[in-house]
């Protein structure tokens, strides 16, 4: 079976659209700008990431996220009387989930579906400097590495039986952080060497095999984001 590269393999949205959506989401969902005035847009922005997950065929994650939102919504309605301490802690937790989760899902969606090369090129077209985009792409590449490394370290601590033995909090922190930083530092050094022998440099023109262009969905999402800001502006300055 012959392999043929499909240069159009990418997600539904352009990287720039995704970032605009993230920006909008962090203003209106997490930042809660406009409050009651924006409530319709708020709910759209909360459920949109779930739709995006469905498009990516991540059925389970989408179902879980959807269930959590619905659950939180009803739980919050039930918790609108004077609260006891436990209830208020619970309400706070729910609050954090409903505020943060949509954006976290969106951010995760962006990281999962955006190729490093797509991201670098899209940012270049927006005239964002390499000095920001290269570190950002490394951060995304590195989160899974940090997670992998700390899992191994955690395993080693459990096996050596010193997770309990760390009577002093300082030791618990030291034992976790020192090997983590040491091994991330070594991996980082090797990663830099490898990337530089493959011609990665700052401020040089690079090409991109992935076709990046705005499609219909991009226009819809951008219109939605624009509508959010316009509606918010109306509420803020004219009403």
């Amino acid at each position: 079976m012959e392999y043929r590269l499909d240069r159009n393999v990418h997600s539904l949205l352009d990287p720039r659209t995704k970032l605009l959506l993230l920006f909008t989401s962090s203003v209106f969902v997490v930042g809660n700008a406009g409050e009651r005035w924006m409530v319709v847009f708020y709910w759209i922005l909360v459920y949109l990431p779930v739709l995006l997950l469905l498009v990516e065929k991540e059925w389970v994650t989408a179902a879980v996220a959807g269930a959590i939102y619905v659950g939180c919504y009803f739980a919050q309605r039930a918790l609108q009387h004077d609260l006891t301490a436990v209830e208020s802690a619970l309400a706070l937790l729910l609050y954090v989930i409903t505020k943060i989760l949509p954006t976290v899902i969106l951010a995760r969606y962006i990281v999962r579906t955006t190729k490093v090369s797509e991201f670098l090129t899209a940012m270049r077209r927006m005239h964002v400097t390499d000095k920001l985009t290269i570190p950002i792409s490394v951060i995304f590449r590195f989160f899974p590495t940090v997670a992998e490394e700390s899992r191994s370290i955690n395993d080693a601590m459990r096996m050596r039986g010193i997770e309990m033995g760390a009577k002093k909090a300082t030791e618990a922190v030291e034992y976790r952080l020192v090997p983590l930083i040491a091994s991330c530092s070594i991996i980082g050094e090797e990663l830099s060497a490898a990337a530089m022998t493959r011609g990665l440099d700052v401020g040089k023109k690079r090409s991109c095999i992935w076709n990046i262009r705005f499609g219909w969905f991009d226009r819809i999402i951008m219109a939605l984001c624009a509508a959010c800001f316009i509606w918010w502006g109306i509420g803020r300055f004219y009403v």
Partner: protein
Amino acid sequence: MESNRLNAKDLINVGIYTAICAVLCCAIAMTGVIPIMMVLLVVFVPILTGIPYMMFLTKVKKFGMILILNILMGLLMWVTGMSYYALIVGTIAGLLAELIFRAGKYNSKWHGIIAYAVSGLYCWANYFGIFFNADAYFSTRQNFGQEYIDAVTKMLPTWMCPVLFVVDLVCGIIGGWIGTKVLKKHFTKAGIA
């Protein structure tokens, strides 16, 4: 050969240490659900991130790396629901820290510690919402429950703003100092810093 322009290696280092600091901050911030911890974040974040940060500073030999790390931390904070104050303050603080560390020729221990303390001010900036606009801040957080709000506002009257500023700086210095200790105890001794 030794140019002052940032190269790919420097930028990759910035990315790596931003990732480590961000993971740490995130782990610590999870504890902010308890009212007292919310206030104490300004203590724990600077103290703990000092360790990777001091390791980061050993890699910094050119202008711009500290600034970029701070901008990125600010961006991450903003996206994950703190406030855009972190980005603004973080950028200014990063620039100041950069100048301080440069004044120490990029290898002075105390310049490094103070640069760290200054650059960590984005942590303090996260409380601005409460100080400057407490009603609005909590009107969007009614779900916290009145008790939590009372607990937090009681701990955070407006005059606490400069106090937290000082606390953040002092903890930053402590964190930086601990960082240099760990650096010496482990990384320098192991020959990887």
